[in-house]
């Protein structure tokens, strides 16, 4: 099957992930990432962002079960793939970057040996070619003296450098899709900005499809073309990033945006918004809106199935309220 230009690189429909039959970690998540597009998944910790990404890679820990209508990558059905086929895809066409650069490199090997291994595995490259490619990519991610870095061990590198190495390593085989799971969370603010700029530059140059997981709305505003706001295993609101930020509709999205101080808009001394409570654990058979316990606008009918509403364009959200609701009209 060949994918046409318009087809998304990755398309996930109605993904459900169940942890040991006791917790529904992801409940019917759908998502599409097109070539050259950055899609951000945003939400609090425990909303099912990372676990959705791991489901796409089929790297879920034992005892966690995924089901979906389809998970397609470049037209291929990932659900039907054997473990062997999947591992041929991982690191080759689909790459992943993790949150903790301090621990995602193996302390027992040099940078060069870890990087070239990926190319040797997928492309049957010989060590010298792979090393050349690694040096080229290290230079590309802005590491000076790549030749020297190749011979160093992870403990000799700073966190920011290690994350650059991870990015370079993810690019070894020219992937089509890059999944970045909170790639900047563990880094200093200044280094965060550098890494984000780097990801953006690489994504534009290489035409990657980038699925970026973050809990930082600032990152979303800066990086994404599309955003999916996740809450308790559901995408509660999705759309082009401009639409969602200009007209946030789901109470959770509005709540998240209220938590952020906006220069020139938030007055000194004025309290920031907050969302009371924390993300609930959703048992099987749960019905209705997962956010209703924390929602300011909750009503009795929120305990029933919630409609997916269209807010114009590609912008949709999962709530009983109309697109133009206000606090006053909801109450």
């Amino acid at each position, binding site marked *: 099957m060949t994918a046409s230009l318009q087809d998304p690189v990755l398309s996930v429909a109605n993904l459900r992930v169940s942890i040991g039959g006791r917790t529904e970690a992801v409940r019917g998540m759908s998502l599409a990432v097109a070539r050259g597009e950055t899609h951000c998944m945003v939400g609090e910790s425990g909303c099912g962002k990372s676990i959705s990404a791991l489901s796409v*890679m089929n790297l879920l820990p034992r005892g966690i079960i995924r089901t979906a209508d389809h998970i397609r990558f470049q037209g291929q059905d990932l659900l039907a793939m054997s473990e062997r086929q999947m591992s041929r895809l991982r690191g080759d066409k689909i790459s992943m970057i993790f949150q903790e650069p301090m621990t*995602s490199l*193996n302390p027992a090997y040099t940078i060069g040996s870890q990087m070239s291994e990926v190319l040797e595995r997928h492309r049957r490259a010989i060590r010298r070619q792979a090393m050349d490619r690694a040096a080229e990519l290290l230079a590309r991610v802005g590491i000076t003296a790549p030749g020297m870095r190749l011979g160093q061990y992870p403990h000799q590198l700073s966190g920011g450098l290690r994350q650059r190495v991870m990015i370079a390593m993810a690019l070894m085989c020219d992937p089509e899709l890059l999944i970045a799971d909170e790639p900047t969370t563990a880094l200093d603010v200044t280094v965060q900005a550098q890494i984000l700029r780097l990801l953006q530059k690489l994504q534009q140059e290489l035409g990657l499809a980038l699925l970026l997981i973050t809990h930082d709305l600032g990152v979303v505003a800066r990086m994404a073309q599309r955003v999916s706001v996740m809450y308790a295993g559901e995408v509660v609101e999705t759309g082009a990033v401009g639409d969602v930020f200009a007209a946030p509709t789901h109470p959770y999205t509005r709540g998240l945006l209220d938590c952020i101080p906006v220069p020139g808009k938030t007055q000194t001394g004025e309290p920031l918004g907050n969302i009371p409570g924390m993300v609930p654990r959703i048992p099987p058979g749960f019905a209705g809106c997962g956010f209703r316990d924390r929602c300011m606008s909750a009503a009795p009918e929120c305990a029933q199935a919630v409609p997916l509403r269209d807010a114009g364009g590609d912008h949709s959200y999962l709530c009983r309220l109309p697109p133009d609701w206000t606090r006053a009209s909801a109450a």
Partner: protein
Amino acid sequence: MSSVGIAQALPGRRRFPAFRRLATLLGVVIVGTALLVAIFAPYLTPHDPFAQDLNLRLIPPVWMEGGQPTHLLGTDQIGRDYLSRLIYGTRISMLIGVLAVITSGLIGITLGIVGGFYGGRTDDFVMFLITCRLSIPLILVALTVVALVGSSLAVVILTLGLLLWDRFAVVARTTAMQVRNLDYIAAAQAAGASRVHILVREVLPNIANHLVVVATLEMALAILLEAALSFLGLGVPPPLPSWGLMIAEAKEYMFFSPWVIMTPGVVLFVLVLGVNLLGDGLRDMLGADLER
């Protein structure tokens, strides 16, 4: 994940008290000497260790009354040169120690890593095997095997190798459990690494420091067990010069010629002590994270 700190960044650079460094050095010297002696035994022996001379029975060591300079450590009850027999005995002890450790290491590490990494049923099975092994009395099984099969060097090595893997398995299992949740394992999976690759290339090198320590302890144990089996007459068959066998053969003469039993005893003690000191030193140097 802040455990990746300076201690790990600078392996072996921490300062230890002088006596511990001295102890490690002593261990290195003892084990190194034993290795060299074992390897170059034919060039070091002043006499043929098997040559008997009934005219020269039970000559005391050179520093005692009646000692002869040609037999530095004297001779045994049938006139064989004691120093030569000790030197060849080093060969047997080291050979058994190293080969038994390799055999048991292969078994124990494989089981331990697989169990610790995969967890669940696999781990239950490995734990069951370890428990079974721990409930087997070592000496009794070794005695039975030797009694059934007959004693030879190979049988002793295999028996010990097949019985000493439990500590390898326990340590490999626990450390593999700690490593399996680290991000670089997930990163390797996300980069398309196969299962075997992850176990052998990602997990094993990161738990190797613990396993090296276990290997030294097991080696000391194997050497002692061989001596014990040989003493009981079920280890290395005579006339091979095993230290345990030397002690066994000398026990009837120890009243009037105590050196025949003391010399191999002291050498055995020194070698086992050296191996243990080396193991402690390695633990201090490699296992910076063991103490935290």
